[in-house]
């Protein structure tokens, strides 16, 4: 078999598809093992999701409507790296989240909490040459869901990244440090124990903007290339 261009994740990094404590996985997980595919051009290429897809201010979720959204203003920033520690430049980072009251601006969200006319909860930005990104948003609230009795999602922000290739595609969720709901959340806890704290942002006093906003740092690590004799 040809040598892989992109490293394959070791076991223990990602959740199992079937994680029965998260009930929706029972009917939505394959039973057959995935077939190992050598990496061809189809897997090592991918869309660039270029700057032409972006509008100005898409990384500031507090300035997308007429007024300012309610809630605690925060900076969420970090770097997109690969497993070799190399920054991933010009990578599209897309996020979505509920408002400060725990309600999504989405027709399917029926949670009895107020919508905020000044908050839609979607943001996009591309990383710079050092792989850095930054969003301005408000801290999302916790919200109930129907998974089990008295189930609440810990506050989280959904992240979508493509990285350089079809092989590096990742959708994940960022959580806040010290959230007491983390211990009870089957989605967070679907990640193997040794890996799940990677999904918690860290409070970042250095980036906090005095008199204006607290800051959280969340680095995202995508699959890295295998070393080749040329490199």
């Amino acid at each position, binding site marked *: 078999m040809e040598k892989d261009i992109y490293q394959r994740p070791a076991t223990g990094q990602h959740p199992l598809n079937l994680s029965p404590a998260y009930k929706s996985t029972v009917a939505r997980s394959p039973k057959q*093992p995935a077939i*190992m595919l*050598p990496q061809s051009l189809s897997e090592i290429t*991918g*869309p660039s999701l270029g700057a032409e897809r972006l509008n100005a201010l898409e990384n500031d979720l507090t300035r997308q409507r007429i007024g300012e959204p309610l809630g605690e203003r925060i900076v969420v920033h970090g770097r997109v790296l690969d497993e070799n520690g190399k920054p991933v430049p010009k990578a599209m980072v897309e996020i979505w989240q509920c408002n400060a009251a725990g309600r*999504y601006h989405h027709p399917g969200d029926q949670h009895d909490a107020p919508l905020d006319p000044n908050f*839609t909860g979607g943001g996009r930005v591309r990383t710079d040459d050092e792989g850095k990104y930054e969003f301005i948003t408000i801290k999302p609230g916790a919200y109930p869901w129907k998974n089990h009795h008295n189930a609440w999602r810990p506050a989280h922000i*959904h992240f979508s990244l493509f990285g350089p290739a079809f092989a590096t595609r990742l959708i994940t969720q960022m959580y806040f440090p010290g959230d007491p709901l983390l211990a009870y959340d089957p989605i967070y806890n679907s990640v*193997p124990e040794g890996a799940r704290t*990677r999904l918690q942002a860290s409070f970042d006093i250095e980036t906090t903007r005095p008199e204006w906003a607290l800051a959280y740092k969340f680095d995202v690590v995508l699959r890295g290339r295998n070393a080749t004799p040329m490199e």
Partner: protein
Amino acid sequence: MSHALTPSQTIGPFYWGTLVNTYRADLAPPGVAGERIELVLSLFDAEGALIPDGLLEIWQANSHGRYNHPDDRRNLPLDAGFEGFGRASTDTNGEARFATVKPGRVPWPAGGMQAAHVNINVFARGVLNRLATRLYFEGDPGLAEDPVLKLVDAARRRTLIAKRDGAGIWRLPIHIGGAHETVFFDI
């Protein structure tokens, strides 16, 4: 320096309006070379229920078999306006549609050519990891020699092969589980 991979999580049910605003993605504006096709992908769970809140993405070569990406260094034409990427939500019938062109064939690392195919990502509430699969075209002369299909049990290959349904329309049901479970790939 080694960095630990960020684990995957579900897309959840509420991505509409941010990641995508469409049930039908148009990849090929006028002027793009190739045979015009529309892919109709439908998504089902293990019990055969349709999934109305899934997100599907496709990634494909252009009609000349060239990927619009710097790691495809072959001397083949790129089409202005054709990136090869599409993203659409499944609708209340569990269907997402992609208007595109039929991709050309691309090589296999160990030699030879792959049959024309489209690469697919499946996301949904209850799906914790990206599910990667492929779409091939029924009746395509390259199918018999396709090195990826050869990795798949003969009885399951049909889960990857779209059927023609009228002029230019190709349909492929994707079953996340159950008796007709689609073949997914570890890429």
